[in-house]
């Protein structure tokens, strides 16, 4: 008990730091993403790669239509307002736009404090980690996630999602979740762990590009950039800097209105670690 409080007072400076101070916790890394919507062509390769990498269950058509699907990464499609004055008012002259949406790895994650058993927490990499073994399936986290990117195992999918020999393609680095467990994107945490182990074995620091997520690796247009925000030389940090998006600020005070970086629901102060670069269109089309 005394050691508990002793520890608390000894580290008081660390605990009382406000969220505005960069690095308000001792993060080893701050994994983050930048997704360029201008490059995204909505091909869904990223979500497919995610299925393969993370042993996501394919739930079948009926359950998909019942909106019980498991895709951790979904490519959302939005249409513009119908063109005014067009002969067919519903015509979509310019096609849809796409928004790949997965867990935003909030640093002030609304999903975390509400979990009754602490199954979801912020780990040392700035990730919103999910402990599958600990989850009791109360689903409060899913309700409190403004992005709706937590997925629940409504059934046991082990039999029908990977009938033999498909079970042989399962990724051995990550578990297959059973019914009643909440799951979500973890920025391919198994790859992060492996890369860290490799770096440690070789006695060097982690370098930018050592970790690639499955979606990033698969994206045909290189729309996804992934890396450590704490590394000033990383590509993702450069993208964040270039677009003047900063953790810990609600309003991004951008000097140049042409800068395209934004975070979804920034006003909720979730401190999400994914920035999107707005899609540029030729308005004269």
């Amino acid at each position, binding site marked *: 008990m005394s050691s508990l409080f002793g520890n608390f007072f000894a580290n008081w400076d660390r605990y009382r730091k406000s969220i505005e101070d960069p690095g308000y916790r001792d993060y080893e890394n701050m994994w983050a993403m930048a997704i360029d919507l201008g490059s995204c062509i909505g091909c869904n390769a990223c979500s497919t790669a995610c299925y393969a990498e993370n042993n996501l269950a394919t739930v079948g058509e009926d359950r998909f239509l019942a909106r019980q699907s498991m895709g951790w990464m979904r490519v959302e499609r939005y249409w513009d307002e119908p063109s005014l004055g067009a002969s067919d008012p519903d015509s979509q002259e310019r096609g849809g736009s796409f928004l790949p949406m997965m867990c935003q790895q909030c640093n002030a994650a609304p999903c975390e404090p509400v979990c009754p*058993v602490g199954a979801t927490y912020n780990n040392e990499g700035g990730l919103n980690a999910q402990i599958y073994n600990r989850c009791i399936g109360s689903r409060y986290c899913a309700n409190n996630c403004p992005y709706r990117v937590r997925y629940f195992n409504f059934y046991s999918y082990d039999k029908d999602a990977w009938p033999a020999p498909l079970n042989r393609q399962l990724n051995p680095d990550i578990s297959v979740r059973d019914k009643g467990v909440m799951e979500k994107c973890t920025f391919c945490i198994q790859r992060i762990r492996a890369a860290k182990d490799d770096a440690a074995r070789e006695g060097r620091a982690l370098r930018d590009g050592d970790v690639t997520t499955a979606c990033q690796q698969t994206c045909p247009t290189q729309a996804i950039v992934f890396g450590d925000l704490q590394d000033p030389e990383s590509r993702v940090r450069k993208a964040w800097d270039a677009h003047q998006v900063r953790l810990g600020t609600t309003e991004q005070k951008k000097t140049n209105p042409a800068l395209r970086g934004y975070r979804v629901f920034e006003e909720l102060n979730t401190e999400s670690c994914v920035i999107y670069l707005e899609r540029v269109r030729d308005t004269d089309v």
Partner: protein
Amino acid sequence: MSDPVHVKDINEDIAWAKINADVLRSMKNPRLGYWIAIAVSIAALSVGVAGEVYQYNVGMGPAGLNTSHMWDLYISSFVFWIGMSHSGTLLSAILHIVHADWRKPIYRFAEAMTTFSLLTAGLFPILHLGRVWNMHWVVPYFSDRGIWPNFTSPLMWDAFAITTYLISSALFLFVGMIPDLAICRDNAASGWRLRLYTFLALGWRGDDRQWRNFRVTYLVIACFLIPLAVSVHSIVAMDFSMSIMPGWHVTTFPPYFVAGALYSGCAAIISLFLLLRYLMKFEEYMTFPILDKVCKLTFVIAMVWSYLNLIEFASVWYGHDIPAKEVLIAKASGPYSPFFWGMIAFGMVLPFSLLSKKIRRSLLLLFVISLLLNTGMWLERWMIVTPTLSLGFHPFAWNTMWPGWVEWGIELGSFGWFGLLFLIFVKVFPSVSMYEVKEMVYHRKHVVFDDVEAEIAKLYPIVDPKARGAAQTPDLGRP
């Protein structure tokens, strides 16, 4: 005072022996109606059990939940049943403390209702877990794994609050029943009843010391229960208001939920009042003037609830938080609008009918109205849970849902479970408090009412400890 119905709560000339006989009779020889009620309850409960067994084996899928609607009927029924449990406390504890005499013939079943609806409510957070078999992880027990639950989660507060409330209200029910259990014991011939009542009566003989201790204990638990009841439903409200979801993140939720709880509880008291009155032939104890007072109480609480409801709408509307406003508009005009307006009609408008003296005295009409009031409150809970999840922040995830058969089955089962517990209770325990009714009759006859305190002091004198041994209390031969 020309209206005879409003003069007396209870006939003052009932003999004490008749009170005993009437109540004890109600506990024996179940009639056909009783057996039918039992059969219906068991049938409903079986549907629920079947649903739960199926869900346990298969997963939460058949409940009809989906990625946007992770909560639905389970949680709204949880709130509903917790709400039902508040009337017992209100009637017993609060009215006991303010010396409202008229509560005496009817508080026992209201307390039983509290305990049983808590037992029902407690099932829902458990049944809705994806991994029921791990539910004990919410409890901060010591284990060598050194893992504790997350104390910031309202779901954990729930676990504490419900357990505390359940234990205290069961204790309250039991303590208040001890003198009656002794009567039962003295009248039971043999068999399990004798053994049960002997055990439960805790050696009650009714001497002065026992009465005094009993009064103090009962009062202490009553005082303890009132803040507890308020806190329990506030915590249930915090399940919602602590989240960031538009439509849930509302600071008025705790008082609003408490008012709603008292409201639905009072409505349920009216229903059960009429049912017991009819089934158990309690016409002499559950009288019109008492019913009249319960109706007026219900009306007042309904108005408080309506006011808080309107406040909530107003603050959402004028607060101009766009997603929250969207949820409000969708409730009133979207696919859920029939249920929303049903809630307004049953919960806000219908209580005005209680103002009519005619309606207050028409048993059948009142029964229907009380059921409809509770329907309105049930809809209210559903309207809190579901539309918000249909329209969260993220437009891509907007949709509607309808619960699946498992959820409806378990919902039905919960009513069966409650009904079964209640029906068993009324045959095993006295559902009208004999000793308090006797007190009531006695008071009406003998006590001058402007000095209740003095009368009570005379009836139950407090012995000065210094004067002990001066033979104030007769030696009844106790050790």
